């Protein structure tokens, strides 16, 4: 068949260059992925720890004699969680926290310090289940950077 021709040497050198470029790109991608994973692990650890602290202590209802009722949340403590998170999570890390009920209401309005909705490259979410006035609710804490 007539056509433009390559010698074996030219083809071999083109293949070698392609493989070198591919491996270099792959290595860069691996480094980027690892950095992204490490960042995610940090955010995930932060979100998980804050959620644990929230359901077991910060949001938990107290009895008259001071006993903590873990996982039973009190709406008057929602602002306490906001204050603690504002203290612990500082830019460039941002957070959003929301307590979803079986039906939409405004008792627990979403809190946050700038939002995770824009210009963020990594995010972790911790979801926990809490009790509030006869129903289970989902506490969702999202931390991003």
């Amino acid at each position, binding site marked *: 068949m007539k056509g433009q*021709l390559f*010698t074996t*040497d030219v083809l071999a050198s083109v293949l070698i260059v392609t493989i070198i470029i*591919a491996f270099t790109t792959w290595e860069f991608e691996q480094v980027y992925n690892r950095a992204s994973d490490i960042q995610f692990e940090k955010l995930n650890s932060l979100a998980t720890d804050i959620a*644990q602290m929230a359901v077991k202590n910060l949001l938990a209802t107290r009895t008259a004699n001071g006993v903590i009722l873990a996982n039973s949340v009190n709406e008057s403590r929602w602002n306490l969680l906001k204050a603690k998170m504002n203290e612990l999570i500082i830019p460039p890390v941002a957070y959003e926290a929301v307590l979803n009920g079986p039906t939409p209401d405004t008792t627990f309005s979403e809190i946050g310090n700038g939002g995770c909705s824009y210009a963020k490259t990594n995010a972790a979410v911790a979801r926990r*289940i809490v*009790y509030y006035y006869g*129903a*289970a609710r*989902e506490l969702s804490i999202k931390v991003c950077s």
Partner: protein
Amino acid sequence: MRKGVFFTMDAAFALYISLLVMSTLMIILEASTNYSNDPTVLMRLAQDVYEVKSYDPAARLPSFIKTDIDCNSAEDIGSVQKFVYSDIGVDASWTTKAGVYVTSQKVCYG
């Protein structure tokens, strides 16, 4: 120019396309193996469900989670076991007897 074995443009393009397809497949396969469930997360959710049920056994749980027998066919299950005191419990010989018993709570994603 040195004489050698000749390849047409078609053959060279075919090799390139094969390399591109192989590398794309490798990327897709690699991405699909990155996801994994953290068992600690499910264990903590099981603990949460146990606490919530201790306040209200009939409390309806959020839809993203299932419990107990609904998790029989689930791949990832979180579970906690608790010692509880009951004065109307049943011991190993099915005799009603007061004492400390083990209760468990299983959860999985719905």
